[in-house]
């Protein structure tokens, strides 16, 4: 009897242990059968239209969400075809609650038909699922159109016109002989003193034009300043050293320095190796200049152009070497480092004003005056918009040109 009880007990245990396996089998068989899933109501009011302000390569598709969006829909699939009768191919999908899709693929010059499928997808296992699908009406044909003006940039266009008009107006005034007052910029006034100090001490002047290439406006501004600095160095017979990190900058800077030496009647004093390539690598460039500075102990250092993390490494080394340092960059994040480590720093637009300020040529000074006038207009506009905003008038909403 005891043996029978033991046998019954063992049998019960085995059955209990095997139950999960039986239940798994039942799910697998359910997956194989794939029971029907309730299909959501289809999306309505599908609209396909050209994407505004683009080059004719995109179409915007929008729709009214399915009434079952919250209850049944798991995603919407966007279907596209060249014919209203199909075949339609899925080109993308959105999650439930989303009623907008932009078609960016292969649309240039082609007319398409679209429909939207609301999908209810129920996962049975990790790899199997069942879906209930309902499709909207077909819309189309629609063909993307390229625009001739990007209306989203209307505000930029407006301010560009205002700024250019102000600059051109003051250039014309300067050309007509009118005396223009330009505010003093301490950093630029110190250029002569810094080079003079180098002349008296018989040491080098270093000019570092940043690590950006010639496609960066800050580098172009730096090269224009280099021309003026080279002219003063050539006049004073002071050695100018220009280590560069880009080959194209080297070529351009070399020509600029050569011309500067020729202009003051000292073409013989120019040596090609004054402007020399070091490396394209950011920290390699910083290390090389640090080494040169510590060995040569220059009396003056100019940092003009695009600088990043190497800015402080360079400026602190120059400071340790006891050089007068003048810096200017278009990278707002690096300006505080230069302010901390250099004697003079050109902030913001001063880098771009330096060349005109040094040259004192009326037309260039006129452009500076125009630039300052445009800045005043900007300040006025910001002030007016701030007042309007305080009264609940949001100009951005009024100006929405999308």
């Amino acid at each position, binding site marked *: 009897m005891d043996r029978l009880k033991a046998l019954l007990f063992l049998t019960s245990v085995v059955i209990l242990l095997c139950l999960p396996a039986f239940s798994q089998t039942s799910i697998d068989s359910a997956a194989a059968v794939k029971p029907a899933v309730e299909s959501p109501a289809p999306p309505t009011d599908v609209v396909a239209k050209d994407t505004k*302000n*683009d*080059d*004719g390569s995109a179409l915007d598709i929008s729709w009214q969400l399915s009434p079952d969006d919250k209850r049944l829909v798991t995603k919407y699939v966007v279907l596209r075809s060249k014919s209203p009768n199909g075949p339609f191919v899925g080109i993308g999908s959105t999650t439930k609650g989303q009623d907008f899709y932009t078609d960016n693929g292969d649309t240039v010059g082609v007319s398409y038909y679209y429909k939207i499928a609301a999908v209810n997808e129920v996962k049975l296992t990790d790899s199997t699922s069942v879906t209930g699908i309902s499709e909207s009406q077909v819309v189309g044909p629609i063909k993307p159109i*390229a*625009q*001739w*003006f990007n209306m989203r*940039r209307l505000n930029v*266009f407006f301010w560009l016109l205002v*700024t*250019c008009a102000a*600059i051109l107006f003051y250039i014309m005034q300067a050309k007509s002989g009118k005396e223009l007052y330009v505010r003093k910029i301490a950093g630029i006034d110190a250029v002569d003193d810094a080079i003079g100090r180098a002349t008296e001490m018989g040491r080098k002047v270093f000019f570092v034009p940043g690590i950006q290439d010639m*496609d960066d*406006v800050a580098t*172009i501004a730096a090269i*224009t300043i280099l*021309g*003026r600095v*080279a*002219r003063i160095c050539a006049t004073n017979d002071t050695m100018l050293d220009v280590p560069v990190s880009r*080959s*194209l900058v*080297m*070529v351009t800077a070399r*020509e*600029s*320095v050569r*011309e500067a030496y020729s*202009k003051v009647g000292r073409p013989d004093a120019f040596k*090609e*190796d004054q402007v020399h*390539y070091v490396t*394209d690598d*950011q*920290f*390699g460039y910083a*290390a090389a200049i640090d080494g040169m500075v510590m*060995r040569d102990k220059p009396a003056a250092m100019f940092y003009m152009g695009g600088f990043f993390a*190497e800015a*402080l490494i360079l*400026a602190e080394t120059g400071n340790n070497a006891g050089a007068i340092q003048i810096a200017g960059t*278009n990278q*707002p994040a690096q*300006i505080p*480092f230069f302010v*901390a*480590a250099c004697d003079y720093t050109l902030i*913001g*637009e*001063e880098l*771009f*004003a330096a*060349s*005109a300020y040094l040259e004192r040529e009326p037309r*260039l000074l006129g*452009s500076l005056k125009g*630039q300052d006038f445009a*800045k005043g207009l*900007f300040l006025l506009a910001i002030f007016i918009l701030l007042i309007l905003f305080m009264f609940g008038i949001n100009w951005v909403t009024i100006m929405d040109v999308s």
Partner: protein
Amino acid sequence: MKREIPLIITFVAGVAFVLQYFIPHYPFNRFENIFSDWFAIVGAFAIWLGALSLMKLCLLNISKKSHDWPISLLIIISFLSIVIAGAIDGFHGLNSVPATSFRDPGTNFDWFYQNVYTPLSSTMFAILAFFVASASYRAFRARNTAATLLLVSAFFVMIGRVPLGDYLSGWLPERMQFSQWANWLMAFPNTAGQRAVMIGIALGTVSTSLRIILGIERSHLEG
């Protein structure tokens, strides 16, 4: 003509770039890519000029036994080592299967990159921390009102960015804690200052571009 041709090219390219920003229609939408390709091609040829300039300067230093000639020798050895390593590993991408490159892991070039270049770059970047400390020490001396204001602001930003700040001011209401002071300083006075600088830079960029496009500014061409 030496002056006129570059000025004409500058004018045409400058106007084309301005137009492509506002006109999305073909062919203006292609200008940026076309110019970018041209720039890359010209830049690729110019690399040789840079490398030759570097080699020439180093060889001159060695031949003249200048005071830093051992450094020049080191530059030449480093330069040739990495070029030879890359050349030995080569590029087998067009016809070989699988496609391999000298930049793949395990190559000689990669060894130099991982064991020489990366540690040296990291070292230079790490030195920045010490320079920040020395520059801050000078900048944060309360010499006048503005410098004192800078010192006080820096104190609150630094203490508000570390756990110690919240530990020390944790007993205060949340909006009075150091981290909130730091957030306020960064979000308002700092952002306002940065934006003012950015507006100035944008105006300076427009002004410089206009001067260059119209040929008023020529110093980059003639010194």
